[in-house]
């Protein structure tokens, strides 16, 4: 049996065939290289080159799978379902583009910010941990094997705990924030493993496509259902689903600014992708317990998150803490889009994953520039800086507008689609009309806290003793690239909308979209 499962190696491989594994391999090999060379001067250039390479690979992968096909790569030549396979389709490639893009664009920002906030002797290991975090996030999204998801999840989580703890050079509360994050994150990952064990007990396989087929054959017995519950709760902790979000405010506030940028834009999004993959592709969306979970658990919790987190964000006096609570609210929007279980809702959710990623990265970069120039991120420290640092605060305002969902920015399309999906469902069930109203009301709340930040920056008198000048160029260029992307994606929405729609269709197809490569032919 072992010999026949081995794929014939007669087909010559080109570099293009190896793209899925290269995406993970490039950052994964850079981390030990950075440690091996041990030189602080080489650490940043190596990291930057690796993340640029990862971004290019992710872009090429997205171009390949945009039409609705998928790319499958078998590790070690062992064909699935026996071997580990990496499987990229439209949903995958979209999230991969976001993660690698944010990873690449944050590094020039991090060059300045890390020099200011992290101890000099930790820089080499800091960039090595950054590379490992990127590896884990990319691997979590690209893989098609369930236990591989857990392995990469833990790789990214452990490096995240290390990166968050680096903020201790500035504020010792970063240590307790990292510790709390460690405890809660490990419990979440262990719950995920328990759910996976139950799935393995019921089906005997770990390949996502094969799991989908075998679960569809079995129907909904108790093992499969409890596995689903454990997986959703476990990943829900990583997604910062209300009420499992308690680690997020402290971790984002006290981490170094560059780490906040990376985490806010990528960590929760990769976990949301895993939830999407398990809910729609592995567990068929027609299972009643899937529908029940989404309607009864996801939707109410998402609405509570949207309101309560936005409400708390209004009363914050610290930029990073306000943005952290805002992240919890935006994750609520994404989960609400998933809970609608319709094509429009799912497209809105996937689109919001991308839009929120670039918006939050832009906003946290602005906060990081303020930390660089004023030594802290409190509102009173940043009063009136809009006149002394106009370019930085201009980019911050664009990010704020996108967070609210003003037409012309990237955030508008996803919020619009979300309301449209709610109205579509309101035709059958009148309660969804209240949901649509709730979405609009919580967007009004986000206007309040974004306006508070803008008022502090532009409408207050600056401290006459402050020596703040414009942020350095290495910080301004990434910020304005992201701001330009936000505006461009607000006006020319075709690329994003088509890809997100394709991803949503692929996910809603359920198990059909995940047939094992061997059956579809091609000794890939």
């Amino acid at each position, binding site marked *: 049996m072992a010999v026949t499962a081995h794929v014939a190696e007669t087909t010559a491989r080109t570099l293009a065939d190896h793209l899925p594994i290269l995406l993970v391999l490039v950052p994964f090999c850079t981390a*030990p290289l950075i440690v091996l060379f041990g030189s602080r001067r080489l650490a940043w250039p190596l990291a930057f080159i690796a993340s640029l390479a990862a971004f290019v690979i992710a872009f090429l992968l997205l171009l390949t799978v945009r039409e609705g096909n998928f790319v499958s790569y078998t590790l070690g030549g062992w064909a699935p379902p026996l071997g580990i396979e990496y499987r990229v389709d439209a949903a995958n490639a979209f999230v991969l583009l976001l993660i690698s893009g944010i990873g690449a664009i944050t590094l020039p920002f991090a060059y300045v910010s890390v020099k200011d906030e992290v101890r000099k002797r930790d820089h080499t290991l800091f960039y090595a941990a950054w590379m490992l975090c990127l590896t884990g996030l990319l691997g979590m999204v690209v893989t098609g094997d369930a236990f591989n998801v857990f392995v990469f999840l833990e790789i990214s989580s452990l490096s995240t705990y290390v990166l968050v703890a680096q903020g201790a050079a500035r504020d010792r509360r970063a240590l307790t924030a990292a510790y709390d994050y460690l405890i809660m994150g490990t419990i979440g990952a262990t719950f995920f493993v328990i759910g996976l064990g139950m799935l393995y007990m019921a089906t005997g396989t770990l390949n996502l496509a094969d799991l989908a087929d075998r679960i569809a054959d079995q129907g909904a017995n108790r093992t499969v259902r409890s596995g689903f519950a454990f997986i959703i709760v476990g990943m829900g902790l990583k997604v910062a689903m209300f009420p499992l979000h308690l680690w997020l405010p402290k971790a984002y506030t006290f981490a170094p600014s560059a780490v906040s940028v990376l985490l806010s834009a990528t960590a929760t999004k990769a976990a949301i992708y895993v939830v999407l993959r398990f809910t729609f592709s592995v567990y068929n969306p027609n299972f009643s317990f899937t529908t029940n979970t989404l309607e009864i658990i996801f939707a109410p919790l998402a609405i509570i998150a949207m309101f309560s987190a936005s409400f708390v964000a209004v009363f914050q006096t610290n930029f990073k803490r306000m943005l952290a609570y805002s992240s919890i609210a935006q994750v609520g929007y994404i989960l609400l889009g998933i809970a609608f279980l319709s094509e429009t809702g799912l497209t809105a959710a996937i689109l919001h994953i991308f839009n929120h990623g670039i918006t939050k990265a832009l906003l946290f970069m602005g906060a990081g520039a303020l930390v660089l120039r004023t030594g802290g991120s409190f509102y009173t420290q940043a009063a009136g800086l809009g006149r002394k640092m106009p370019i930085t605060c201009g980019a911050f305002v664009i990010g704020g507008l996108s967070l609210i969902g003003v037409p012309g920015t990237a955030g508008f399309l996803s919020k619009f689609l979300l309301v449209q999906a709610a109205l579509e469902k309101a035709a059958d069930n009148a309660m969804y009309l209240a949901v649509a109203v709730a979405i609009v009301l919580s967007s009004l709340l986000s206007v309040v806290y974004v306006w508070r930040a803008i008022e502090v920056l532009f409408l207050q008198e600056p401290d006459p003793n402050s020596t703040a000048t414009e942020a350095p160029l290495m910080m301004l260029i990434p910020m304005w690239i992201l701001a330009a992307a936000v505006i461009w994606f607000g006006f020319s929405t075709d690329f994003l909308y088509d890809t997100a729609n394709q991803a949503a269709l692929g996910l809603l197809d359920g198990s059909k979209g995940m047939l094992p490569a061997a059956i579809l032919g091609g000794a890939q």
Partner: protein
Amino acid sequence: MIYQHLILRVVTKMLVGTIILFALYVQFHGDFSPGGGFQAGVIMSVAFIIYGIVFGLRTVKKVYPEWLVHKTMALGVLIFAGTGIASMIMGYDFLDYDALSPDDPVAGQHLGLLIIEFGVGVTVTGVMVAIYYAFAGRNPSISDKDW
């Protein structure tokens, strides 16, 4: 201080060599008995750690200095990834050990597993010793005299 604990010192000197030998045995007999990279790495690191506990951190750092510990951690990972990249260069998939000996695939699988387990063993040794150095190297809040 080093003239106390005579029994511990003598027994440790006798045991360290045996532990390292046993670690190498466990490393390379992973195919035939329980063993493999991770277990062997932990046993190998125990040799250095017990030497460090009995004879002092400075003494063990003369044998296995801290910069070497960090380099071995990175080196092991690169050995593992390097095997995979070698098979990619030969035209096969990542980590397809048939590439290492195209005429006899079974021998290739054998060789590939040996190499990657060696990489894992090297890394795990480095990591465990690094953890010990990190914890033991902190300045204690109570000095040894006050214990």
